[in-house]
């Protein structure tokens, strides 16, 4: 079991013939992901690696192959449109790896995805992996292990660091979701928490946050109100200089400066234990799962 995607998920890769797309498609296939189609407009009819049929449009790929999930590796300037195309073609799960998409584009694209009843993970994210089942994105397959821990993170390599620490400590994962670090993303911490709460294979959840915004604080309240499973948090950026990202104007709206300290406090107030270092995570997890 897993959340969002498992071994039955049929994946179309948008931008399959590009540099990143082709590299990671091979990696996904190697991991066991069911790559059923690729899309590169103008290359319809060709095959990727003599194996995966390429289509001009996602709609055609879905019609011909029954794809129900998409992974997007197209350049930033085409990525928001690619997200919309996937949603418009009835793809249920859209994972957008591309980084550098203007936030104003994402305001529209996230609305579009919602209007079409799809789920978007990302953009600017490492994607997701359900160990032993499937991988959609770029999380290295060799650092994960099947097991009971659900992992949610706004970050890329920091996720790998934490996941690797878990795996080394014998704590396998049900699914690891990199939700992306951009200001406007498709799937939130709360969406993932809800899914993990409902996933019978998940026993505990690791939530890796960062400075900025109020997503972690909202997640903390959600955990307190809705989660029966233990959640352990980590927040990067205690030493980050303030005011270098969104400045303070965000605080006028949210009433929050989005500092690591504030987030850690909110976690603790809501019953979410917090690891001070990535390496501390396995120990705390073992404690909360057994206690």
């Amino acid at each position, binding site marked *: 079991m897993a959340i969002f995607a498992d071994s039955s998920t049929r994946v179309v890769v948008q931008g399959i013939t590009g540099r990143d797309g082709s590299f990671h498609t091979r990696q996904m296939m190697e991991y066991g992901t069911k790559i059923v189609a690729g899309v590169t407009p103008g290359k319809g009819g060709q095959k990727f690696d003599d194996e995966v049929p390429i289509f001009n449009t996602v709609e055609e790929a879905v019609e011909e192959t029954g794809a129900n999930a998409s992974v997007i590796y197209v350049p930033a300037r085409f990525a928001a449109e690619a997200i919309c195309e996937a949603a418009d073609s009835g793809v249920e799960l859209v994972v957008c790896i591309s980084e550098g998409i203007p936030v104003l584009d994402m305001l*529209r694209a996230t*609305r579009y995805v919602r209007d079409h009843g799809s789920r978007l993970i990302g953009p600017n994210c490492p994607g997701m992996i359900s160990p032993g089942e499937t991988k959609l994105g770029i999380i290295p397959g060799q650092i994960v292990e099947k097991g009971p821990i659900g992992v949610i993170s706004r970050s890329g390599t920091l996720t*790998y660091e934490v996941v690797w620490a878990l795996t080394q400590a014998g704590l396998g994962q049900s699914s690891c979701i990199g939700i992306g*670090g951009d200001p*406007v993303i498709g799937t939130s911490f709360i969406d993932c928490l809800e899914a993990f709460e409902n996933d019978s294979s998940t026993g505990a959840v690791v939530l890796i946050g*960062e400075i900025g915004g109020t997503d972690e604080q909202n997640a903390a309240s959600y955990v307190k109100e809705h989660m029966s499973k233990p959640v352990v948090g980590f927040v990067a950026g205690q030493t980050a200089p303030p005011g270098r990202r969104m400045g303070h104007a965000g605080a006028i709206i949210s009433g929050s400066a989005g500092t690591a300290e504030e987030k850690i406090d909110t976690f603790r107030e809501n019953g979410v234990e917090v690891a001070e*270092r990535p390496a501390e995570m396995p120990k705390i997890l073992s404690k909360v799962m057994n206690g």
Partner: protein
Amino acid sequence: MNIHEYQAKEIFREHGIPVPPGEVATTPAEAEEIASRFGGGVVVKAQVHAGGRGKAGGVKLASNAKDARKAAEKILGMEIKGLTVRKVLVSPAEDIAHEAYLGAIVDRANGAVVLMASPEGGIDIEEVAAKTPERIFKEEVDARYGLLEHQASRLAFKLYPNDASRARQAADIIDKLYASMIDAGASLIEINPLITTESGELKAIDAKLNVDDNELLRKEKIAELRDVESEASEEVKARSQGLTYIKLDGDVGCCVNGAGLAMATMDLVKYYGGEPANFLDIGGSSSPEKVVTALEIITADPSVKSILFNIFGGITRCDDVANGIVEATEQIELGVPITIRLTGTNEEQAVEILEDAGFSAMTDMDEAVKKAVELAKN
């Protein structure tokens, strides 16, 4: 990307927002000349990418051209939050009957642009937000429809409920402010204060506009507004190589792949009793050249006493980083000890490359950070 007040005002002007005239001076003589052309009192304002300009003495009123020269003399060359002021904006002084605040920002919590207005302008708007949040009015823009006229009008009537003339002017300005935001690809745009003159006209007296870096590729005219001179030179250099570098106050130079891991590494430096000298993210697909640039920037900082590499290889190949380190050390004298932690993709090759060149490499993050902190103390 930040742009200067005078640049933001030019964008406002192009969109029809009423902005008082103003010209930029880079020398006191120029400031005097501009002021004498305007005649009467002027205000001289530092053009610098730092908040709190007013409190730092970067804004001065001058009653005549001579005084304007003196004001410019004091402001030009001044340091505000580590940045040197190289330009001032000289504008005629305005008679002010009232000051309001107008702004718009991408609100990540709602995934929407939110417009904000307050009749309490001119002062620190954060303070208003904290102390009297009911004095800040908001309109959320549905990206599917854009800003609708009734929203601009509604916000405007909240600012000036008993003055239809000012409300209509404000609605028009709000509309144009939003258009400016979209056209410039801004993530934040502000008019503070939006003044009412004694004769009842609204004018934007200050202007702030932050551009979403991801817009720069498609907004060429906006990208040209970047004032490289006014930014820290190392940050400019880093950006040219696709790196993100931010100078901090400590002595452990950090070089990490990924922003989250970079922050976590800095936090760990602090946790083990050290102080990070910088934030440096070499990004995903790191070529050896990027690593060379990164090391050049770090070693150029005289406060760095110890260098720490922390690489978790995913897309980033550890061997690329290793090659970069070897290459860099052939060109640059590091001068300080280096601690290297590498794990993940092509870890073995990386270790081999490094050992061949006389470096040692670690795989445990905590161990590496501890060692780097220690080395900085010696």
